[in-house]
């Protein structure tokens, strides 16, 4: 395993009951690289991420990561119990180490300094995603793992959030493993795309193709440069049960 390699997963398989959720999935994430996992609902994306995080054990396959790899994890969403009074600051303090940057600095990086003393339950969905990103950053991560980071964020907020993630990647030179459905927003900044549907359908560099005028109008020029469409050429399709069916050539 070379030095810049953060995650090396080989032939990961897992089954829940009779359902084969992941089948021989292999991927690597390197330092400074952005890998985006795409795929339909129920394709096993979150399961794969949970295995990589060590929250779930694969039934077969091999997972290699450097010792003491610092991971910043941003879960899909955070449910705060109504009975739990907690401010943004206290929430971030929960994850602090001796070497973490001051909380005000981290909040500044994700541009939510003004929320420091707000109750976690009172902030909006978009603000919450930034708080979660701040929590991931407090780990001084070598690898950021983001599970649908823009979930519950409005359209213009999504572009800003992905821009922020891109800035963070550049500044900290960390690897990023991300699940995303917002293809038009993430593709231009992604080094590698993995299309997952229980197995890896295809993977590789995304193609930067065109810029849709309506997106241009919506996001402005800066973001528009980041937009691209990823065309992926399947050599097979799936039947209703998810089984692979080779294309017929007649």
């Amino acid at each position, binding site marked *: 395993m070379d030095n810049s390699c953060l995650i090396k997963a080989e032939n990961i398989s897992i089954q829940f009951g009779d359902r084969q959720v992941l089948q021989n999935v292999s991927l690597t994430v390197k330092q400074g690289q952005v890998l985006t996992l795409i795929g339909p609902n129920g394709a096993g994306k979150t399961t794969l991420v949970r295995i990589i995080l060590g929250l779930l054990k694969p039934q077969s396959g091999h997972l290699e990561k450097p010792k003491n790899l610092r*991971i910043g*994890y941003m879960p899909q969403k955070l449910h705060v119990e109504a*009975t*739990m*009074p*907690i401010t943004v600051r206290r929430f971030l303090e929960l994850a602090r180490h001796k070497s973490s940057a001051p909380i005000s600095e981290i909040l500044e990086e994700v541009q939510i300094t003004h929320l420091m003393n707000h109750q976690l339950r009172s902030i909006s969905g978009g603000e919450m995603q930034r708080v979660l990103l701040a929590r991931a950053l407090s780990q001084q991560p070598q690898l950021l793992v983001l599970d649908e980071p823009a979930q519950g964020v409005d359209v213009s907020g999504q572009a800003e959030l992905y821009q922020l993630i891109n800035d963070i990647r550049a500044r900290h030179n960390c690897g990023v493993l991300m699940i995303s459905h917002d293809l038009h927003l993430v593709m231009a900044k992604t080094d590698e795309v993995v299309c997952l549907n229980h197995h890896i359908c295809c993977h590789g560099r995304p193609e930067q193709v065109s810029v849709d005028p309506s997106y241009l109008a919506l996001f402005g020029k800066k973001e528009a440069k980041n937009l691209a469409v990823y065309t992926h050429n399947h050599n097979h399709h799936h039947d209703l049960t998810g089984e692979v069916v080779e294309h017929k050539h007649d």
Partner: protein
Amino acid sequence: MTDFIIKALIAGLCIAFVAGPLGSFVVWRRMSYFGDTLAHSSLLGIAIGILMDINLQIAVIASSVFFAGLLIVLERNKTLSTDTLLGILAHGTLAFGMLILSLSNTVQINLMGYLFGDLLTIGTQDLWWIGACSALVAALLLKYWNGLLAVTVHEELAKVEGVPVGKLHALMVLMVALLIAVSMKIIGVLLITSLLIIPPAAARKLAQTPEQMALGASLVGGLSVCGGLLLSYFWDTPAGPSIVVTACCFFVLSYLVPALFTNKN
């Protein structure tokens, strides 16, 4: 004031002080039914203790810890939903305990005292048990506070960040078991969890941070013990219900008073 009420007061305050922060976790983690189950199972501990003629306090602690461990193991295996599991254990152990007690005619025991608490029964030895166990739980809470809180807010996030989630969960359950076991005599099997739930619920309204809620709950719990014991002393009411009724009054006040203020403005 007589000796016994001072003993009961000291014991009650020790328990209330620790029950504040511990009960806050029970509220945040939705473990109240869990606490009930452990409390009910301690009656089985009493019954077995009487049957085998061993120190009752030790018998209760042992059975409480045993059932706490059993619950942790059964929860991990997930064969039944936790809710169902707790229901079976809670009522099964309570019924089994009552059955054993009614069959053993050798000792006349004060069943009402165990069910609802009796401050007349607090002796010097009980006071030592309560003091030592409260101090132990308080020390553990202080030492692992941040980790316990991290696990409570988001378990998976805490796990990725390197917090020993499984161990802390087990610790939490054992602490609840221990506190319930020692406070049974004063509050009673059937009402014990209310001292874990009601004071934190009353403190919730005014708290901005988890620490404020925990300490506020200790305060409300302490005041409820004082009020309840006074009620019990002067009107000869049972100790457990008196304390719980006082706590309920604080809870209602915590919701009514802020509401009245906002209406005036």
